[in-house]
């Protein structure tokens, strides 16, 4: 990535495509898991890379690039939810229980978890995505979201407790129906 940035610095515009290809999965997935809507996630990812194109001259290193992309994507996702509160959000209470009476297989459980993540409050949701999609440390998440590390910690604990509780309910009800 350092080479791509250097090439961009020398005026090679093809380096930008390389940068997009390298980071598109990260940016798109953050937006997708946050909004649970592929088309809006793509639109946001495109916006982030357009903004990157205009600001690439100020990017100093690959680490700076990662931080910049995560920061801008997080902000853009949270702004999107705040700007369009009418966009259907899944609340923990409203999240439908599984209709399949058999115990959930892994793909089902994953799908279920993704829906439950989308039902979290937006700040907690982004903490979960940065922690488990991006595998970031609490300090890194605090830097990206510009919040104290203790806030990150408490949001993470609270979100995990909520997810655990809801998932237990889901699995119990699936088990009962199977019996």
């Amino acid at each position: 990535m350092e080479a791509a940035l250097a090439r961009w610095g020398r005026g090679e515009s093809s380096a930008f495509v390389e940068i997009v290809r390298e980071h598109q999965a990260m940016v798109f997935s953050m937006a997708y898991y946050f909004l649970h809507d592929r088309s809006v996630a793509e639109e946001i990812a495109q916006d982030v890379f357009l903004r990157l194109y205009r600001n690439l001259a100020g990017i100093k290193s690959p680490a700076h690039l990662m931080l910049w992309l995560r920061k801008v994507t997080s902000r853009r996702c949270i702004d999107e939810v705040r700007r369009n509160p009418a966009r259907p959000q899944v609340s923990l209470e409203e999240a439908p229980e599984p209709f399949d009476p058999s115990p959930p297989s892994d793909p089902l459980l994953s799908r279920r978890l993704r829906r439950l993540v989308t039902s979290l409050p937006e700040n907690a949701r982004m903490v979960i995505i940065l922690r488990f999609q991006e595998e970031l440390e609490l300090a890194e998440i605090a830097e990206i979201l510009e919040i104290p590390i203790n806030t990150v910690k408490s949001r993470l604990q609270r979100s995990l407790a909520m997810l655990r509780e809801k998932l237990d309910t889901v699995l119990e009800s699936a088990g009962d129906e199977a019996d």
Partner: protein
Amino acid sequence: MKPIEEELRAALRKQEPPEGFAARVLARVNTRPTPQTAWWAPLRAFVRSPRWRWVAAAVAACLLLVAAVVYHRREQRMEAQGEMAKAQVMKALRIASVKLNIARRKVQEIDRSGPQS
């Protein structure tokens, strides 16, 4: 079942965007003109930033306070000018009254001495 942390890692595995994503980004880069930054854009961004919103509120409060002080002083100045004008009018009336009394006395004196001559 695995711990929820592991399940989350599995559930939130990175996904590639739809085919042709990079090409669509490039197309937008090539078609969209770079917007000219308006001179007030940094100010607007500053005011919109939640972190600095309180600064904007404090500045607005200070401006209001300054405006109130200026208004109050202007009112006081106008009141003083009004008082001064009133005093001048009263003084003029007093002078006019004295002069009229003098004139009336003169007329009366002339009236009294007139038939004798």
